[in-house]
C-alpha cells in the first residue's frame, strides 16, 4: 500500500466512523423521545446486557433495543453486534 493511499484510507475511516456513531446514537435518541415507548425499556436493556454478557463479550454500544410503533402492532427489536472473529 502506497503512502498516499494509506492516508486516504485513514480519512475514509473518519467519515465512516461518523456515520456509524450517528446511526447508533440517533436510533437511541429517537427511542428516548418516543412518546409511547414503554418505560421498562432502560431496565430491560440493562438486564439483557447482563444475560448476553454471560455468553458473549459485547459493549453497551453493540446492543441496541429499539421500539417501533406500527399500525397493527408495536415492534421491539433487539440488535446485537457480535464481536469480530479472531483469526
Amino acid at each position, binding site marked *: 500500500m502506497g503512502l*498516499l493511499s494509506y492516508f*486516504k*484510507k485513514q*480519512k*475514509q*475511516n*473518519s*467519515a*465512516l466512523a*461518523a*456515520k456509524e*456513531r*450517528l*446511526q447508533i*446514537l*440517533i436510533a437511541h*435518541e*429517537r427511542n428516548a*423521545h418516543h*412518546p409511547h415507548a414503554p418505560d421498562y425499556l432502560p431496565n430491560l436493556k440493562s438486564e439483557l446486557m447482563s444475560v448476553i454478557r454471560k455468553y458473549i463479550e459485547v459493549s453497551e454500544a453493540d446492543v441496541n433495543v429499539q421500539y417501533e410503533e406500527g399500525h397493527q402492532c408495536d415492534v421491539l427489536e433487539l440488535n446485537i453486534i457480535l464481536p469480530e472473529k479472531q483469526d
Partner: protein
Amino acid sequence: MSKVVVITSGKGGVGKTTTAASIAIGLAKQGHKTAVIDFDVGLRNLDLIMGVERRVVYDFVNVINGEATLKQALIRDKRADGLFILPASQTRDKESLTKEGVESVIEELKSEGFEFIVCDSPAGIEKGAYMAMYFADEAIVVTNPEVSSVRDSDRVLGLLQSKTRKAEQGDVVKEHLLIARYSPVRVDEGDMLSLEDILDILAIPMIGAIPESGSVLQASNRGIPVILDDKSQAGQAYSDVVARFLGETVPHRFLEVEKKGFLQRLFA
C-alpha cells in the same frame, strides 16, 4: 394561499440566516410576495445579512406589544419587489415572543396577501426556535455535514413532528433537508459525511446542497444575500433550491469534485 416556512436546525451557525435571506429574495424575485421574519430576538442578524440594518426602526416585538403597527415595522427590500423584512428586537429576550403575538403577526401577514412567510429560527430548541416553528406549514432543516449538526437536526425533526400546530392537529409539517457548507473534495477524501450518509440517517427529502464557498462570507460582508451573486456556486445552488421549493425539477449541481488539474492527476 399563504405558506409559512421555517428555516431551522437546532445547532447554531450552520447557515439558517444565510438560507432564509437567499430563499426570501429568490421567492420574491420569482414574483411571490414574501415576508421574512427574524425570530432570533436578542441576537438579530437577518437585517445585517440582508443589508438593511440602517433602516430598522421598529421590530417584531414592538409589533407584538402594540408599540408599532406591522406596516411601520416591515422594511421593504429595494432589490426584490414584494419582499419585506421584519427584524428581531435587539434589546428584549425570547420570552417576549408569545404564541398569541406571533400568531397575530402571521395572520396579519396572510391577510395582507403575503404568499410566503419565511421564519428564520434561532439556534437551540428553546422558546425562540419553538415559536419560529410552531405555525409552520413547511420546514427547511439546515444541516452541515458534521456529526453534531446531523444529530441536532434529528432532534429538530422530532420537534417538528410533535410540537407544531400542524402536529397538534394531526397534520404534518412538510420537511425539506438543506445541506449547507458541503465540500465534495473532503467527501471524496473520506473526511466528510456524504449527502448519501446524511440522507440515510435523517431520511427526509433533500431540497439542495450548498457548497462551502467563500462568496457566502463576501456576500454577508456586503449585505447582499449570496443568491444575488449568480457567478458563485453557492448563489446558483440557492437559486436551484428556490426553484425546487416552487415545484420545479432541477438537477443537483456542484456535488462532485471538479475536474482535477494536472498536478492532482499526477498524484492521484
